[in-house]
């Protein structure tokens, strides 16, 4: 238990030191203390993971502190450490460590240096609390805490109006999701009487039997409703349609944050949560279908938007959305392990892609428009090669980490016999082509072709310093090879048996596993599959459109102007939100304020009662005349009344 506590508390302590005493310990003090803490957390997480990997290792469920007990509901801080948790802890702390190191180079000119380190350490603490929770209350705490840090970091450059707009947007959209999440937790609490995972999971079969009436005449399964509500929370945090709108805007934050929070860790919290709640979701076929359809839709539609974006970070952001859709779809197919496996590989190569994008941005002095890049291959060799690894991993090129996870995931969805599975499977396979197209569009436009740089930028162009390139290389290695040793163990060898519950009838991975004969065989089998062909086709199309015949995309855009406008405007989600939802809310609020607040509450109730009280006070005050005989008289009257009441026997 002490080890688990130390893992969580080390980043918190570092965050407090860097945040409150940043002025005294200075810049190097701030990064030393936070990196030391997160590094220690990472090493201890590895120890925990190795401990869990030992044969016969049991999940550890322990209560650290009982906060309060009310009406029999215990509110506790506690850790549930099993293989799922241990894996997430390692991913979180490793990526966080890389981002910490990288930040030294990326932020070295920023006046908010110490504040930044404090925030990212705080984020690491919150994320660890989230993944290690053994009860819903702590899960919710971690959930909100990562949201808070995300809000603070998107608005890190708080003098930029766009950053402020973006962090407000992220906050508001997440509120919608969190509202559903909270309702889901409340429903589970109401139906099971406990916040503890183990207790709630044990009662899942009974909860699945319950029904409730929402509107008169409509009967809902409590489990379906609770799971869908929880998933609404996941949709907010993991940016699933239609709650995805905040994630592209969150790119206003510094790039290390985009890598850490908005690609590798926080946005996967929703995926993690659904996997953790698999003992509940498995009891609701409807909820799983919803998850499947939402995930697949997100995977395909957001990929299309990525093709028309010009900001390097936004392209990566839309690719994140799309990949989150893949993970979610895997969850919906009951292939939780595949979702988590893709989450892990994605964390490495997406963090890599973001940090590489950041390296480009730093090299070009904060230029982010890919139309003003090109030909950077020879100037930024390390960034170039690591980006290539990241992009190949992302599109699922055979042999790379993303290939194993994505191919397994797509096959699992194909096998799922659930409502919406064939639609989902179509979306995911088509998505492979789109992924390859936008990834290599960006890659070619940035690193190949003519140099379209400003004179000024070209003049200062040089490869980034070591603190930036070392994390790139360290992340490129797992992006390249992590799939080989892990696929068999995580997906088919029952790695997650103690952590994830799958109904025997739903176990698509087991069916997939019967054909599995090692990573090499999986690779050979994949080579002949449709996804690999599509990804190669995507790369080829990108090469043709953006290197060989750069005029073609423009021509296409004018030819199908309607479609192009739809994509450029991101399916008009933002416009709908701003013009209908936000304006509607403001109009309603304004009306309530004018009529309800100003007229009735302020005018009649508040000022009215205040006037009444003042008037009464002035009257009653007269009784305090200062004359002794008045006082005595008051006492005598009081006595008379009291005696009268006793006589009357009231």
């Amino acid at each position: 238990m002490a080890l688990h506590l130390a893992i969580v508390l080390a980043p918190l302590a570092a965050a407090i030191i860097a945040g409150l005493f940043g002025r005294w310990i200075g810049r190097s003090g701030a990064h030393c203390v936070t990196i030391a803490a997160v590094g220690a957390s990472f090493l201890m997480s590895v120890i925990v993971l190795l401990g869990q990997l030992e044969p016969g290792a049991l999940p550890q469920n322990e209560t650290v502190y009982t906060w309060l007990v009310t009406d029999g509901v215990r509110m506790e801080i506690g850790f549930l450490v099993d293989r799922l948790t241990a894996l997430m802890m390692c991913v979180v702390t490793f990526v966080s460590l890389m981002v910490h190191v990288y930040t030294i180079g990326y932020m070295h000119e920023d006046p908010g240096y110490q504040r930044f380190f404090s925030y990212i350490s705080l984020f690491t603490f919150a994320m660890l609390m989230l993944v290690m929770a053994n009860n819903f209350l702590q899960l919710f705490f971690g959930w909100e805490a990562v949201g808070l840090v995300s809000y603070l970091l998107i608005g890190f450059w708080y003098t930029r109006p766009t950053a402020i707009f973006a962090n407000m947007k992220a906050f508001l959209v997440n509120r919608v999701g969190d509202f559903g999440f909270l309702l889901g937790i409340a429903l589970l609490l109401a139906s099971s009487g406990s916040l503890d995972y183990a207790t709630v999971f044990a009662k899942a079969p009974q909860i699945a039997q319950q029904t409730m009436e929402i509107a008169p005449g409509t009967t809902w399964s409590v489990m379906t409703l609770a799971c869908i509500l929880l998933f609404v929370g996941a949709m907010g945090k993991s940016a699933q349609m239609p709650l995805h709108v905040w994630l592209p805007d969150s790119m206003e934050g510094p790039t290390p944050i985009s890598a850490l929070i908005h690609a590798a860790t926080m946005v996967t919290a929703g995926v993690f949560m659904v996997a953790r709640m698999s003992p509940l979701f498995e009891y609701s076929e409807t909820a799983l279908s919803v998850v499947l359809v939402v995930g697949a839709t997100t995977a395909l539609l957001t990929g299309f938007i990525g093709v028309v974006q010009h900001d390097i970070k936004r392209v990566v952001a839309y690719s994140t959305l799309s990949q989150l859709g893949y993970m979610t779809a895997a969850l919906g197919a009951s292939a939780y392990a595949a979702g988590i496996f893709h989450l892990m590989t994605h964390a490495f190569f997406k963090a890599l892609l973001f940090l590489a994008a950041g390296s480009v941005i730093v090299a070009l002095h904060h230029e982010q428009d890919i139309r003003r890049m090109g030909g950077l291959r020879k100037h930024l060799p390390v960034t170039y090669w690591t980006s290539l690894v990241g992009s190949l991993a992302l599109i699922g090129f055979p042999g790379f980490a993303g290939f194993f996870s994505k191919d397994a995931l797509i096959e699992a969805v194909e096998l799922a016999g659930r409502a919406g599975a064939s639609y989902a499977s179509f979306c995911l396979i088509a998505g492979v082509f789109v992924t390859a197209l936008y990834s290599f569009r960006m890659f070619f436009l940035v690193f190949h072709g003519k140099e379209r740089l400003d004179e000024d930028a070209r003049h200062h162009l040089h490869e980034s310093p070591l603190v930036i390139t070392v994390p790139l290389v360290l992340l490129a290695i797992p992006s390249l090879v992590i799939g080989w040793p892990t696929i068999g163990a995580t997906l088919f060898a029952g790695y997650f048996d103690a952590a994830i519950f799958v109904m025997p009838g739903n176990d698509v991975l087991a069916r997939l596993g019967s054909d599995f004969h090692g990573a090499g065989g999986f690779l050979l089998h994949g080579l002949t599959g449709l996804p690999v062909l599509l990804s190669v086709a995507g790369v080829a199309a990108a090469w043709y459109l953006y290197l060989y015949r750069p005029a073609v995309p423009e021509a296409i855009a004018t030819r199908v102007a309607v479609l192009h406008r739809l994509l450029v405007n991101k399916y008009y989600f933002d416009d709908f939100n701003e013009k209908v939802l936000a304006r509607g809310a403001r109009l309603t609020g304004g009306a309530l304020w004018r009529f309800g607040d100003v007229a009735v509450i302020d005018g009649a109730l508040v000022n009215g009662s205040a006037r009444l009280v003042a008037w009464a006070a002035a009257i009653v005050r007269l009784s305090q005349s200062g004359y002794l005989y008045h006082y005595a008289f008051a006492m005598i009257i009081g006595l008379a009344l009291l005696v009268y009441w006793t006589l009357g026997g009231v």
Partner: protein
Amino acid sequence: MSNELVQFLSVVAPEAIVGTGICVVLLAGLFAGDRARDATYLLSMVTLVAAAWVTGSAAPNGSLTGGAFVVDSLSVVLKMFAYAAVAAVLVYARAYLVGRRMDRSEFHLLVLFALLGIMVMVSAGSFLVMYLGLETLSLALYAMVAVERDAPMGAEAAIKYFVLGAIASGCLLYGISLIYGATGALNFTDVAAALQTTTGARPLAAAVGIGFLVVGIAFKFGAVPFHTWLPDVYQGAPACTTLFVATVPKIAAFSLALRMLGDGLDVLASDWRFLLGAVAIVSVVVGNLIAIAQTSIRRMLAYSTVGHVGFILLGFASGGAEGINAALFYTLVYIVMTMAAFGLVILLSPAGQEADAFDDLRGLNQRSPWFAFLMLLVMVSMIGVPPLAGFWAKWWVLSALLDAGQLSLAIVAVLFSVVGAFYYLRVIWLMYFEPPAMTGARMAPELDLRLLLSVNALLVLGLGVFPGNLLRLCARALGAVSG
């Protein structure tokens, strides 16, 4: 020594020590002359410590003369609290007395006399002993109000207090005589036993007696309509006297109500609960209303006391052990809060002047942010905002009321404590959002005063965050009484 004498002394040892301390302080004051300023202060402190030590080491069970004087866990807890409160008063008052050249032995002497009266009341087992203690306390208080002989305001307040106090005292005594007439007993246990056996018709004399007793109790607490002495005394007396009058005697008032009504007249509980409830709710309403119209801090705090007292009596009126427990908790918390508030008033009074008008609080945050923050804590606690002690005090009284089904009383009490928030918030507004009225230098009070005020006000916060210990203490003290 004979066995009886040993037994007698073991029961009254704390009272004996305070009595001895009084004699010593009296003599020291007479003979020490100008050197008395520190001598009487220190001797008083030594007396308190010795009394606390003896009280704490004696077994909390014993009685004298057939139960007329008892030592139980309630008396021990209340006495200990009284020692601590008196010690705090002495520290608060010290600099004030020195600054006004009033630091001769009178104040210390009178405080000790009052303490003796309180101790007797706390341990009283019969109506007569209770009355004895009450008179000892009251006479000391009258004199204390007029301790500044040349101040006309003080003299006027003392006269008013004395006359009204005499009326209340007379009522109480008459009530006692009626009850004696109805039951033929003076000890609380005997009275209770006698009333138990009179089945059938309600003993009318005892019931009417209760009406008279309630006058005495309400006067001691300062509940409407027997509160009229409060504002004049709070304003007219020297600040150190106000500090004392506003706080420590409430312990005695609690014992007065609990032992006379709860122990002695429990059989007639429905009668006195109704009377106390009526007095209480009128106090909450009138106290909070008039406080709004005040422009003097002390008068404002006087009416605020009336409002708080209403809450304490509501605890009694709700009936049941829970309500009494809430009342005791409220009383103790009230004393801590009021002590801090008047401590600040003393602090704000520069030598030779009295802080009284709200102007003295204006812009306090700029002059000394720490004290402004402490006052903020106290005011917010008095409003009853969590997580401060005042919140729990109100909460438990209200929950006792609701458990007893007194919904309407609870609603009125809540409404008027919302009204009360106005004048507490005004203090905060003045301290934080108004420019200072005078360009006085930063206050530099003595270290002991600063420390005590900080501890005192932070105690309000501490008790609010961890109310469990004090609540358990109250429950334990009361458990022995009703058991």
